[in-house]
């Protein structure tokens, strides 16, 4: 037995992590990127009000600087990805009884970093550049802070800095003259800093810290106009819902910390993302541990990335200023959950057994969310709410993609979605800026004539979102559908499994998305103007960012043309995937689906069908009814909901958001706030406190009784414990009290001595 133990514990092996410490200057010094906006936050906070433009110039300068830095980092990474031949870092691990499994767990394949000859399905290895410094030491374990720069990190740096920069510029016009202009820009800077810190986090602890910091900024910016109760309610709801999910994050991170620690000699835990992922991907961590950790982390994803059933905060978050909705609640922060899955993909891939299965929790949550969100988008009057539910739906797409193993597709969709959704949100802001309302039904309509720039960019964004070729959304959505594995009739696509169910959900959502965006476009830009005043086109600081995003919404899709797409040379295919997807020890071995023409054609037909149906209803029927009635209608007077009971019921269900808000706010929160808290407090006062009082009083009574009988002279010392002291003056009180206190003390110490004696005698 002893020999066996010795054998299992003493053998140490090392496992390559797929990371390196070398790399060029930009990759080594990525920590500057979050630091600059952080400094700008401090600067704006303390000096912003004194600056001529209220601090906005500081924010814009900082963002411009980090945007340029991010671009440089991006190019540096591309060079590094293709030409780097440096040394790979390995982690020494305890090679226990899992050793054999680990051996053929095919991590050895990339172990020898010198071998660049192999061009398998996964291509040449890409070594992430890691740079760490000690943050603190507790329990003898060193906790580090650092940067992990690899494909997904570089991609996110680009997206975050670009959208943030555009939103900064847009905001100088949009929130001009606001009562808290400076405060707004300060928090935009803090948000950018936290988000950038999040995407280059080297370890899960750092991830957790920045994760909560972006939540704080979201809270502060949703509640920007906190004078109104509704806004502060929305802010609280966002923060508290996210806290519920964060519980999962806290626990999940803890589990992974100790799970990886078990494999590392001389340490009981590790937060390192690379180490954890490597151990998970190579099958060295137990499956059940990973499953539990993945489920916990999933809760965090559900709250942060608005997945069903923790999504309810996201539509309410639209109470914040529109640029915030575009930046935080569409393009960047809400994808933090998706990014976290992508970051810890080894854990999720193994934990949920994504490869070779046909259903799992993540794919299911994502798939369900896309449908739920898309349905809700149909019944909204508020243009921002349409977009918010659309965001939920698209985030569901991304999570579903990760759930079926289509990692690159998910990241690519995140990338394209950031542009077209930011474009749409900023467009809706531009509209609202001129009509002073977000209500499509009562205050919009016919705006295409007066706001041509906004109209055009909004249309481009909508088509990209709906996913018509060749706009960006088409390519990324198509990759996700391909990634599900397809189904028999259309030829399997050799994905990680056969997630037919997810494919169906994705297809239905595609149709729904096309339809609700058609509705939204009609209600906003077509028909006759239903609002008041004279709407006008917004200024250049609003329209220029819109056009930049619109251009990206058209062209971003070409970055990842599918492999085997005959119309372009091979060197232009899958560029995004090549540079973004890690091929390294810390990333699981996923298989890639083969693109399929038939799937692309079918999905396009479905999208066109969705548009046509909505077109037929709004652009034909409603338009006709409007002309007949002489006013600008928003729906048919005798539509389905008035004619069919079941349709009306469905509509009511949607309008009430599946009654989830009633459940959370009306039942759960109220139960906690009122009966449960009251009951606890009541029991505190009536049971615990009363016991103490009773004990005190009884003791005093017993004492009084004794002293009365034993010695009449000492009676005065004891008074009722509740205290019947007549004087308020300090000096007098002091005399009385101290006299009493002395007696108490004397008695207690006497008792203590006796008790001590007893204890010694007894035990």
């Amino acid at each position, binding site marked *: 037995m002893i020999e066996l133990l010795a054998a299992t514990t003493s053998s140490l092996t090392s496992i390559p992590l797929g990371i390196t410490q070398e790399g060029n200057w930009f990759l080594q010094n990525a920590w500057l990127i979050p630091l600059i906006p952080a400094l700008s936050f401090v600067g704006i906070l303390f000096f912003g009000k004194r600056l001529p433009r209220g601090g906005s110039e500081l924010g814009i300068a900082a963002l411009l600087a980090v945007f340029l830095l991010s671009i440089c980092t991006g190019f540096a990474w591309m060079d590094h990805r293709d030409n780097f031949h440096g040394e790979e870092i390995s982690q020494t691990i305890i090679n226990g009884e899992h050793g054999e499994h680990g051996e053929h767990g095919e991590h050895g394949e990339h172990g020898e970093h010198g071998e660049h000859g192999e061009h398998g399905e996964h291509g040449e290895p890409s070594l992430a550049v890691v740079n760490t410094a000690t943050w603190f030491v507790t329990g003898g374990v060193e906790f580090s802070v650092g940067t992990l720069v690899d494909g997904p990190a570089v991609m996110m740096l680009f997206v975050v800095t670009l959208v943030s920069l555009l939103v900064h510029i847009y905001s100088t016009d949009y929130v001009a003259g606001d009562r808290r202009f400076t405060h707004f820009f300060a928090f935009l800077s803090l948000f950018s800093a936290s988000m950038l810190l999040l995407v280059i986090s080297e370890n899960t602890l750092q991830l957790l810290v920045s994760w909560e910091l972006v939540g704080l900024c979201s809270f502060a910016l949703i509640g920007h106009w906190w004078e109104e109760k509704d806004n502060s309610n929305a802010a609280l709801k966002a923060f508290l819902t996210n806290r519920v999910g964060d519980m999962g994050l806290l626990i999940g991170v803890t589990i992974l910390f100790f799970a990886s620690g078990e494999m590392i000699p001389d340490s*009981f835990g590790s937060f390192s993302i690379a180490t954890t992922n490597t151990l998970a991907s190579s099958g060295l961590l137990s499956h059940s541990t990973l499953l539990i950790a993945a489920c916990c982390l999933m809760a965090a994803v559900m709250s942060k990335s608005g997945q069903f059933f923790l999504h309810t905060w996201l539509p309410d978050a639209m109470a914040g200023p529109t640029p915030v909705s575009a930046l935080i609640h569409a393009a960047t922060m809400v994808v933090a959950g998706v990014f976290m899955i992508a970051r810890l993909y080894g854990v999720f891939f193994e934990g949920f057994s994504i490869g070779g299965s046909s259903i799992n929790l993540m794919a299911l949550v994502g798939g369900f969310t896309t449908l739920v969100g898309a349905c809700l988008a149909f019944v909204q009057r508020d243009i921002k709410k349409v977009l918010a539910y659309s965001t939920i739906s698209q985030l569901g797409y991304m999570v579903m993609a990760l759930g079926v193993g289509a990692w690159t597709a998910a990241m690519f969709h995140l990338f394209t979605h950031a542009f077209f959704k930011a474009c749409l949100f900023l467009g809706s802001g531009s509209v609202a800026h001129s009509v002073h309302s977000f209500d499509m039904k009562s205050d919009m309509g016919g705006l295409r004539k007066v706001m041509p720039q906004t109209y055009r960019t909004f249309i481009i964004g909508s088509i990209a979102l709906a996913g018509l070729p060749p706009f960006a959304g088409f390519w990324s959505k198509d990759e996700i559908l391909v990634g599900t594995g397809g189904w028999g009739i259309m030829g399997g696509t050799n994905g990680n499994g056969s997630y037919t169910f997810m494919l169906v959900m994705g297809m239905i959502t595609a149709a729904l998305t096309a339809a609700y965006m058609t509705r939204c476009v009609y209600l906003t830009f077509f028909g006759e103007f239903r609002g008041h005043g004279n709407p006008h086109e917004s200024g250049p600081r609003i329209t220029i960012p819109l056009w930049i995003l619109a251009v990206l919404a058209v062209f971003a899709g070409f970055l990842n043309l599918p492999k085997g797409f005959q119309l372009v040379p091979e060197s232009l295919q899958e560029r995004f995937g090549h540079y973004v997807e890690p091929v390294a020890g810390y990333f699981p071995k996923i298989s890639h689906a083969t693109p399929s023409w038939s799937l692309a054609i079918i999905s396009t037909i479905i999208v066109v069908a969705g548009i046509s149906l909505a077109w037929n209803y709004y652009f034909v029927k409603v338009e006709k009814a409007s002309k007949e009635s002489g006013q600008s209608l928003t729906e048919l007077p005798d539509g389905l909901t008035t004619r069919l009971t079941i349709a009306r019921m469905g509509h009511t269900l949607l309008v009430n958001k599946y009654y989830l808000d009633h459940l959370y706010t009306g039942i759960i929160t109220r139960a*906690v706030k009122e009966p449960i808290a009251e009951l606890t407090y009541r029991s505190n006062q009536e049971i615990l*406190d009363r016991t*103490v009082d009773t004990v005190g009083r009884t003791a005093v009574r017993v004492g009084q009784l004794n002293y009365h009988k034993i010695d009449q002279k000492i009676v005065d010392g004891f008074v009722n414990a509740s205290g019947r002291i007549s004087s308020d003056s*300090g000096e007098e009180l002091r005399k009385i009290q101290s006299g009493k206190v002395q007696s108490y003390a004397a008695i207690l110490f006497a*008792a203590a001595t006796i008790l001590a004696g007893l204890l010694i005698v007894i*035990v």
Partner: protein
Amino acid sequence: MDNLLDSWGLTVATFSPLVGALVMFLIPKEKEYEHKIIALVTSLWVAFVGFMLLIWFDLDATEKLQYVVDKSWIDAIHSRYVVGLDGISLPLLLLTVLIVPLCIVYSWNHFPDPKNPKTFLILILVLETGMIGTFVAQDMVLFFVFFEVVLLPMFFMIAVWGGPNRKYASLKFFLYTLFGSALMLVSFLSLFFLTGAESFVFSEIADNVVAHTVSRTAQLWIFGGMFLGFGIKVPMFPFHTWLPDAHTEAPTVGSVILAAVLLKLGTYGFVRIAIPLLPDAAVEWAPWIGLLAVIGIIYGAFCCLAQTDMKRLIAFSSVAHMGFVMLGISTLTDFGINAAIMGMVAHGLITGMLFFLAGSMKERYHTLEIKRLGGLLVQAPKMGWILGFCAMASLGLPGLAGFWGEFPAILSAYNPANGLPVETFRTFMVIAALGTVLAAGYLLWLLQRSAFGTPKEEFAEDPNIYDTTKTEWIAWAPLLALILAIGIYPNLVFRATDAAVDASLTPCLTIDADKSTHEEIESAHCSEVYGLSDHGPDDHTASKG
């Protein structure tokens, strides 16, 4: 300088406040200004000594007692005057010497009724002696004396300068904690007699516990006595009922000192005395301590949600926060106890700050009834911001000090020390994590109702509601800066505590059974309490499988 500090530093730090108090005692009550100056100078002097102690402290050997003075004191009862400072005491000592001058500055212009700055300040200084003494004492009797010295000044502070229900609250505070102290004394005495030690010095008692093997039952009972004594002071559920009353009735400065330092005496007692001296008993008691800790977390949070008074809400939040500290302690791991000390410091800074804020708001609104507050950010924006900052810190936002007390405590509960039931502690972990959600709930609701929105009609035009004053800034700025600094760089605290905590735990608790060979485990000579002897290869497999 170095030498002087070595032999006199701690003694000077401990007794200077007493000297200051004596001087003030001789000056007539009418000379208020002189009193304030003397008190401030004394406390600043102590803070300076504390700072020098930090400068000359050898941070590479925090596990060693430094500045040790060992003199005979009361020979008749074998008690010695032994003081020393190690990494566990250092952060708490510094917290104390920081808080006291800030309290004196804060009360500069507004002493609560019935005024009388002389007595008030004397009491604060006496308190300071007691608090510092407790943190540096290395002898049980000395520790006990200082521990008790603290009681009286606080009692008077509440009883004389407190709110309407002050008599009840002060007496309850006094008797309840005295009751605990009595049991603690019983434990100290019996431990001394049972071990047959030559003195009450901690290290000697500890050696004797190991050598003379005090019977298991006796150890358990003795630990139980200490548990009650320290647990009441912490306060742990269900012994916490004195706390909300004491806090609610105490004057602002009293609440601040109570929250910032006094509650830590209890947790410090666990870390300094109960666990290092009786590790075997600690293992048996730990699950129960952990259970009470997590009940306290949830229970305190629920009570907070039911409060209608801001100050009382903050008081109950202390119950919840100290629950996290006790959870960290109950894991008996280096990691958990480090988290606990961090939690103590963070809670001291943050809750102290919250009580300051409550005091200042009370001064402006003349009420702390949450219903009537609102729109603080409109009328006093800076103060509103500070309240928001402190609420965020208190709910454990990463980047601020509170987080480093909470999260590591949760983390440590996942993997408690040898001999503790792992599943139980993991359940505790989940419950504690739930507590973070509730904490966000009550703090943000408080923030929403008091700071957001528009001011209520009755206060809308009130000129009394002015923004933060200069005195307030002076008193608060150091606390705010420290909350942020520790939040960003937690090593400020961990650097001091880590080695010291590790040294205070027996190897039996800390040895990694999974990775050590059988021989290594054997050589540690651990009794069966730790469940190490049956850690064969089978367990090794099971733990990973």
